[in-house]
């Protein structure tokens, strides 16, 4: 099997570092060969704060993945996130020269760069510019203008940008291992590739990836990316809230959240308690279930409220025909779909990576959606299908060759 077909996704998450090794088949399907992971340290809210520690953890995860998949990993697609990442929509325009009638690839490229001619903060860099729609002489809904006749080519792009140094830090962390970074991908874009299918993207769908440190989202309307972003709130915050509210250590709070936590209020008997099991021999502490759930509920509700406010600012929330798809580790919180449904007033489902073969346990776990999504994204980029909308992602950023 040619090495070219092996694709590796690396996600440096707040709670865990995850490496997924997949085999891209010529027919477009992907087989998951192995998943390596390591608990993450030195990462807060999706961003590396302790370089050396984080690097060690990445290394651990890579070794784990190599063992499990029996593949030498040489290059990865790196998922990045963080609240510094922002997005907007912009329209680019080029005039077709008089002597030339047909639109060529060159014009498509120049319209992309013209779309990027907007001011973003000087420290920021472009991460993605994702094509939404072409317009040829004002005609809407052109999928592929190459070969068409026209005088003016316009295109809407969804542009994702973030603080350059932070993106580069993540890349450097991986490069020093050493490992090649093929591309950096904003994580919800990756996750959306596997939790949403084309039909849902066309209908309009919102993918929310609630991880340990961040809540990332990406909205598709009419098959094109319309909004995306990242909130610096995640499962860690819930754990921290529990830890402070109930005065228990973080580790205990995390366990309590996973085993007993729920966002649904009024669902337990008054005075119903949860006993904290303690293996160190101390007397178990009793925690009122409703209290626990109230703490979780308030945080999750606030997060969704915030998200809703951001999305409403874009004004596309009513265009979501397929609804909302929640994934990521925190999506496993009990009742989160009902709460989201109540807040967004849209159909909500908790989902995981679809349309994969191989390790079932891997892709059925919402924790791995992003890492698997990275592979799917990579595949789309590499296959470079001319008709595929994904091929338009491939604007590579020529920044990662540097080494200290």
């Amino acid at each position, binding site marked *: 099997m040619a090495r070219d077909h092996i694709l590796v996704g690396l996600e440096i998450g707040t709670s865990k570092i995850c490496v997924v090794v997949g085999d891209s088949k010529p027919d477009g399907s992907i087989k998951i060969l192995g998943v390596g992971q390591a608990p993450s340290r030195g990462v807060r809210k999706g961003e590396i704060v302790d370089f050396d520690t984080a690097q060690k953890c990445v290394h651990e995860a890579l070794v784990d993945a190599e063992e499990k998949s029996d593949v030498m990993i040489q290059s990865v697609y790196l998922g990045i996130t963080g609240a510094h990442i922002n997005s907007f929509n912009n329209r680019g325009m080029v005039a077709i020269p008089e002597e030339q009638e047909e639109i060529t690839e060159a014009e498509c490229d120049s319209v992309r760069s013209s779309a990027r001619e907007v001011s973003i903060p000087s420290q920021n860099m472009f991460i993605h510019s994702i094509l939404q729609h072409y317009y040829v002489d004002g005609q809407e809904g052109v999928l592929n203008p190459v070969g068409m006749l026209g005088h003016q080519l316009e295109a809407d792009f969804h542009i994702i940008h973030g603080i350059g140094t932070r993106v580069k830090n993540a890349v450097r962390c991986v490069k020093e291992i050493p490992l090649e970074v093929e591309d950096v991908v904003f994580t919800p874009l990756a996750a959306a590739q596997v939790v949403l299918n084309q039909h849902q993207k066309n209908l309009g769908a919102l993918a929310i990836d609630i991880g340990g440190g961040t809540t990332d989202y990406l909205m598709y309307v009419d098959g094109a990316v319309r909004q995306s972003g990242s909130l610096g709130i995640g499962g860690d915050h819930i754990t*921290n809230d529990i830890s402070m509210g109930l005065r228990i250590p973080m580790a205990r709070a995390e366990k309590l959240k996973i085993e007993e936590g729920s966002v649904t209020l009024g669902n337990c008997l008054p005075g119903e308690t949860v006993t904290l099991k303690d293996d160190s021999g101390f007397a178990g502490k009793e925690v009122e279930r409703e209290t626990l759930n109230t703490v979780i509920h*308030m*945080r999750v509700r606030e997060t969704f409220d915030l998200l809703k406010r951001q999305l409403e600012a874009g004004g596309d929330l009513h265009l979501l025909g397929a609804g909302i798809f929640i994934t990521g580790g925190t999506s496993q919180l009990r009742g989160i779909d009902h709460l989201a449904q109540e807040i967004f007033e849209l159909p909500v489902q908790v989902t995981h990576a679809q349309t994969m073969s191989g390790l079932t346990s891997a892709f059925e776990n919402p924790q791995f959606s992003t890492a698997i999504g990275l592979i799917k994204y990579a595949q789309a980029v590499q296959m470079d299908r001319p008709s595929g909308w994904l091929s338009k992602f491939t604007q590579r950023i020529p920044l990662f060759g540097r080494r200290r």
Partner: protein
Amino acid sequence: MIEFNHKQQLASNAADQVLIKVVGLGGAGLNVIDRIVLDGAVPGADLVVMNTDVQSLTSSVASQKVQLGRGVTRGLGAGGDPELGLGAAEEAQEDIRKALEGAGLIFLCVGLGGGTGSGAAPLVTSLARENGALVVVIATMPFAFEGKRRSRQAEDALITLQATADAIICFENDVMGETVAPKAGIHQAFAAADETISQCVRAVSSIFIQPGMLHIGFDDLCSALRPAVGAGRCLFGYGEATGDNRAHEALARALRNPLMDRGRMLDESHNLLVNVAGGPDMTFHEVQTLMEALVKFTGEETQMFFGAAVDQTLAGRIGVTVISSAQMALPAAAAAPAQEFVPRVIPTPVPAPKVARHKPRPEPEIEPEAEPAAYAPEPGEEPATATVEEPEPILAAATAEAGEEEGQASFLGLAPAADAEPQTTPVRVPRAPRQPRILSSASDPTPLSPAAAAKREERQETLQFEPVTRGRFEKSEPTIVDGQDLDVPTFLRRNVKVS
């Protein structure tokens, strides 16, 4: 919409016609009235206080005051003697009658166990009924730490009241005090109890006043308060909430009420009265989800009396009232020792109080005979097996000792209602601090000190949190949206007390 307003008007007219009086009798009753005034709980109702103690009367904020026993007690209290209390009330009969005149519905708040409350309550009740008013007695039973004598007096008074009042809602201070933090002063425990009663008066009166789309009548209330068999005690909860999740929150608050603390007991209740009141913006869906959530707590056999009302003053809010009476299931453990003790009790001259402990609670208008009949077989059988043991000697000879033993005997054997508290209280104490919300919201009506104490406690808590508010995110870049540091737990920023 127009039609709706019309209804509203009609209803308020109707409310005008029925004059509600809330009467506080005795020291405890006075405190409750003060609390009701402070809460503004029952708008439009006349508040009347009656007491033997002039000093407390003058300090009361109620509009109408009746001094009992000008000659008998001369402005002093009844000294914990019900006889004296009754005498004082008899002396002031005319004043009482005048004070109660014209009322259609009377809430009589009384703390049983003392002199004035226990002694005068039956007389006041019958005077009120003579005037043609419906009388709902809201009685509190004394705390266990107030001593056995007071409990006995309270029970005696309760039996008498049973015969005279239309409905009795009986609160047990012990249960209500459970939610108070162990370190809280005794006055706070009383204040918490007063607050619950104030809520109850408000809730019950508003059920009658408010125009209900699904109306709950007095008969429904009586049924809800009537336990299926024998012993029962009032389960009452009221909760109010705003916001998106208000239906759930209101119910949660209602169930978090001290008397509902054993929400599990709803499972055993046979009749349950639920009244949902909300502003015009209350949606059917909210009512539906609320009821669905509530039904989870009840048994299959439970009969629901459901009422829904729109109250303009509740705009944006939803209030839920849950009233029921729980039958005290005889625990197996308690049933066994009963066999030893019952025979001893039967021949004594005081079987009435024993039975009374069972049935008195919230039994409105059941003929007193019905219940004893239900219990008759039980004592009847026992004597056959062990009648002759040592019945009278113990009681006659060693009265002092037996008095206590007998008390225990009845606790263990016959009166689980009363029994529940002494047994469970110690177990529950550690749980109490979880409910400081009730505590802190109890801005006390009576003395200044508890309010100060509550404030002091609150402040301390905030201070404690200050240095650690961001927890594990201490060293990371803050996530600030709309000026709020989102790393600080939401419940802290929203000032919700959770532990």
